[in-house]
Every structure is written in structure tokens, then in C-alpha cells.
């Protein structure tokens, strides 16, 4: 249920939906910085055609970049997939299909989270991979 407080709509049920509502906003604040800095790094200070294996080998030599990328991965994936869950709830009429689709979404989220996390953790540059970054 939503109450009019003079503030905007805010869920008051206290259950998962309330948690989800606050999670969307807290993750959003993190994402503003994480995502926009990510864009600048990979499209402005370095052209995207130079974001090669060589560049990543250099960046990931510093573990903090892995932590940064993992935070971006985790927050964007959970924020985006939870957003999609809300969209499914809005448009899918029958409870049976909502459950099927949301379960599928949960599975997909878990798989993508693992693929992303494993990639970040296990990356170990092959010998001799430090060199010029730009493809061409």
C-alpha cells in the first residue's frame, strides 16, 4: 500500500517490496558514480578500440580495479534484474507465468553473476601480454 505523505510514493508494507524499493535507490546512488566513471574510462580517456586484453592486463594488476568492476557488475545486475522483475509484475497477467518468468530471471541473474565474478577473479594475463593497447 502507498500512503500520501507529501513525499513521493513509498511502499509501506515492510516486506520484500519495501526492501526492493530501498535497494533500487541505494544501488542507484552507487551506480551513478560507478557507471559514469566506467563510461569515461572506456570511451573518453581511452578509446574503446584500445580497451584490449593488454590494457586490462595492466589495469587488473591492481586488485582495486577488480573490486571496482565487481561492484559495478553486482549492483548493475541486481538493480537491472530487479527492475525487470517489476516490469514482469506489471505486464504479466497470470500468477503462473509470473512465477515461471521470475524464476527464469533469478536463474539467469545467478548464472551471469557467476560468469562475471569468475572472469574477474580468475583473470591472469598470459605471459608477454603487456604491450601496446590499441588494436590496429
Amino acid at each position, binding site marked *: 500500500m502507498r500512503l500520501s505523505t*507529501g*513525499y*513521493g*510514493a*513509498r511502499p509501506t508494507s515492510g516486506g520484500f517490496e519495501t526492501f526492493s524499493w530501498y535497494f533500487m*535507490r541505494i544501488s*542507484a*546512488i552507487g*551506480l*551513478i558514480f560507478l*557507471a*559514469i566513471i566506467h*563510461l569515461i574510462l572506456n*570511451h*573518453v*580517456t*581511452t*578509446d*574503446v*578500440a*584500445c*580497451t*584490449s*586484453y*593488454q590494457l*586490462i592486463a595492466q589495469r587488473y594488476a591492481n586488485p582495486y580495479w577488480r573490486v571496482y568492476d565487481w561492484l559495478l*557488475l553486482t549492483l*548493475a*545486475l541486481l538493480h*537491472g*534484474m530487479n*527492475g*525487470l522483475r517489476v*516490469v514482469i509484475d*506489471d505486464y504479466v497477467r497470470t500468477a503462473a507465468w509470473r512465477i515461471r518468468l521470475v524464476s527464469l530471471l533469478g536463474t539467469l541473474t545467478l548464472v*551471469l553473476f557467476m*560468469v*562475471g565474478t*569468475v*572472469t574477474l577473479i*580468475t*583473470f591472469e594475463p*598470459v605471459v608477454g*601480454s603487456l*604491450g*601496446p*593497447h*590499441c*588494436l590496429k
Partner: protein
Amino acid sequence: MYRGQSGMWAWLLHRITGLGVLLFLVVHIVDISLLGFGPAVYNEGIALFGTPVVRFVSLALIGALFYHAFNGVRIMLVDFVPKAASYQRIMFWTVMILTIVCFLPMAYFVLAPLFGVNTGNTASGM
């Protein structure tokens, strides 16, 4: 959620941009996982991002993310600041202007290589 008011278009655009960026995120997690297959495979994959078509698609996504981010701040202001709801119109246009102001320099950097313009960000070894 925000339907039926003047905020309807802002809401619809927020939803579409969010879903667009999410679709990209899924592709992006997969393309980054190519790192595990070594430099040859990864660089061949990433080379696609330098092609004209993908540069334009990327730019559209960058615009979508700026809109979504600024409009997200507007949503949060409405949610948490008591008087914000009376400034809907001005906040909506602020979102639009900020989106465009951030989009234009990004467009320059993303598209410059297609026109042979050197923006200094493709220096080898940088």
C-alpha cells in the same frame, strides 16, 4: 507507478532506457568472459566495438544511461524531498538538458575515430 500524469513520458523513457542498458549488460558480461580465452580471442571480440555500427549503438546506450541516471536522481528527489513534487516540470527539463549536455562531448569522443579525428585517447601504450 508514475502513470497517468505529466511524468508518464519520463516514466516510460526511464523504463525503456533501463531495459536497454540491462540488455547491454547481459551482452557485456559475456563479451568480457572472453578474457578467459586469451588475448587473440578477446581482442578479436572487442574489435567489434570499434566498428561504425557498434559505435553508434554504444552512443545510443550512453545517452540512455545518462537519461536514466539523471531521471533516477529526479525520482529520488520526488521520493525523499517533501517539496520536490511541486517542481516536476523544471526538474524534468533539467534532466533533459543535463542528458544532452553530457551526451554531446561523449558523442564527440565516441565518433571522432570514425572521422579520423585524433582526440588523443588512442595513443599506443597509454
